[in-house]
């Protein structure tokens, strides 16, 4: 579902390149984790995949389509969950979702059905008419995910979907992602939480300094690196020095 070849990107006035010939691929309909320390190039990669940033060199294919040349076709088939809560805080969850659903061109009846379905699935049906700003951190994260699911994308890209949420919300989100994947949808997500990635992902790619460090199934990587956990693999490959 994702093939990246020799992707390069240096932001204007940046001291160092963000991506330096990054190449990786994830198989169709898998749950794939894009992992790396701060400044590794995860967000730049996601931004290139979403068309928000243009790569200096290399190419990226999502669902077999070129992200630069076939953006429109890609858009209707993927859903992106930004790291921050990209919802209007003064509007209710219902109002936010209605607006986003209308932008996707969903009919009124279908939109109503999907909103109700996902609000129930994510345990937000009782808070549907409450303004987002009154939601807890976990509720906001869940609503943020629903907003990217209304058109039921083939591939869901999530940037740190569980950052700063309580254990229950995190568990709920991970369970949902697993079940959504079982329905035949692919998932790419970035995270700092390696235990979570180990538990959820079919395959992972660890990147650092804009390059691929290692790629494979979590269990295989642990065996290769003779490590007890993915976190140990991560530290062995990216070092223990602090990152800004």
């Amino acid at each position: 579902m994702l093939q990246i070849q020799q992707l390069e990107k240096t932001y204007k006035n940046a001291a160092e390149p963000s991506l330096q010939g990054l190449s990786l691929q994830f198989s169709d309909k898998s749950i794939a984790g894009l992992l790396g320390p701060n400044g590794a190039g995860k967000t730049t990669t996601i931004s290139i995949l979403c068309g928000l940033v243009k790569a200096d060199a290399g190419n990226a294919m999502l669902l077999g389509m070129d992200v630069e040349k076939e953006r429109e076709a890609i858009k209707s088939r993927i859903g992106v969950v930004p790291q921050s809560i990209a919802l209007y805080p003064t509007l209710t969850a219902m109002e936010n979702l209605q607006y986003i659903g209308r932008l996707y061109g969903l009919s009124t009846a279908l939109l109503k059905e999907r909103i109700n379905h996902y609000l129930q699935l994510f345990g937000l049906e009782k808070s549907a008419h409450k303004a987002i700003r009154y939601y807890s951190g976990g509720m906001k994260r869940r609503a943020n995910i629903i907003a990217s699911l209304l058109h039921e994308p083939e591939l869901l890209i999530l940037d740190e979907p569980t950052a700063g949420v309580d254990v229950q919300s995190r568990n709920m989100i991970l369970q949902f992602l697993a079940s959504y994947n079982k329905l035949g949808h692919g998932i790419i997500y970035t995270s700092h939480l390696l235990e979570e990635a180990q538990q959820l992902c079919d395959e992972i790619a660890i990147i650092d300094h804009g390059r691929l460090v290692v790629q494979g199934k979590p269990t295989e990587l642990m065996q290769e690196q003779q490590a007890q956990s993915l976190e140990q693999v991560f530290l062995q490959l990216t070092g223990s020095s602090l990152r800004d």
Partner: protein
Amino acid sequence: MRKILATFLNESRLFAKDLPGIALLFLMPLALTVLMALIQDAPFREYQDIRFEILWVDEDGGKMAKQLGAELDSIPQFVLIRKLNNQLLTAAKAQELVQKGDFKLAVIVPRGVSAEVANSANQVANELGAKMGAPGKLPQRESREVALEIYFDPVIKQAMKLSILNALEKQVTKIQAEIILARLENRLDEQASDSAGPGLRLQEKLQAVRIKEISGGENSPARLTTNSVQHNVPAWALFGLFFIIIPIAGNFIREREDGSLMRIKMIPGSYYSILLGKLGFYIVLGMLQFFVMLAAGALVMPILGLDSLQIGNAFGSLFLAVLVIAATATAYGVLIGSIFQTPNQALPFGAISIVILSAIGGVWVPVEILPAGLQQLANLSPLHWALDAINELFLRSGSIMTVWKQLIILLLFALLFFMIAGMTESRRRR
């Protein structure tokens, strides 16, 4: 179309839930407009219908002095004060009161003024009469130097001083001419006393051309002149309208920062239809705000003792002009939202730039009284062209045919703002 409408409705919903935002966007400009109209009412009236007190000391007591006093009394702007505390003013007292700043000016008519005017008139009548062969001679003597004395408060504005001096000089000249003509007429009438025809009526004949003051356009129903309301309401309403850049810029930066832009840009179809829905909302909001200010100018100002705002009768042209102005303001908001990274950078710059553009654009004081260099600079301010278009419609009974140039320039400004914003966004992608 569906996306445009959905976005327009969503923006309306967001705005409706932001009560402090509504208050800021409507009440603050309203308060500013009313306040500025009230503050500037006195300076505007200074040249129009303010009543100006003049200490009048008549030491002469003659016909000419009395006539001059009466003529000045008949001018609505002047109130002649001859007595204070039931006592006739003296030159020394009047001078003292002006010096203390209690009164702006005093006019002293010294003894002998009327006699000097009469002597001068007799001299002229005698000379002309002699050349025309009229018999007899009016009494005359050598001329003596006499002058009206005027004391001004040092704080009085130069323009006001000149206007008072002109008024006095005009009246003195008028009275002198009348006296001369009356004497001459009498002499010539005496010469023609044998004939039964009508008198010469020289004074009437010499007033063949009079001055008729007409303001406003040719077809203007009302005779308009600018006043505090007529200047301040459109000017500050435009200022308030341009402040719409603050929510626009804030909204664009917030969407970029919180990932909403990423989500919106990942929605199939052109991002421009969503952008159009947003811009459409802000344009409508700006227009609504402007028309609320005009309504306040027409309805609230008279309650506060000010003049009512006259908006002419080219309503279609006014609507179109306000639409173009609101679009320009919105485009400027998009530009500010694009070129700055954070609200802390954008909002102060946006607010201060509006203040600067309004100052050079004639919002604070009319462009005509700015220094020559600033008058040239005014052309770079969209607020100048906006105000010019509105004044053309309100004060000169203009129409779309007379404001098209201003509107084209405003549209070019809008286009330029959008182009720079677009280039900034595409550079950001790189």
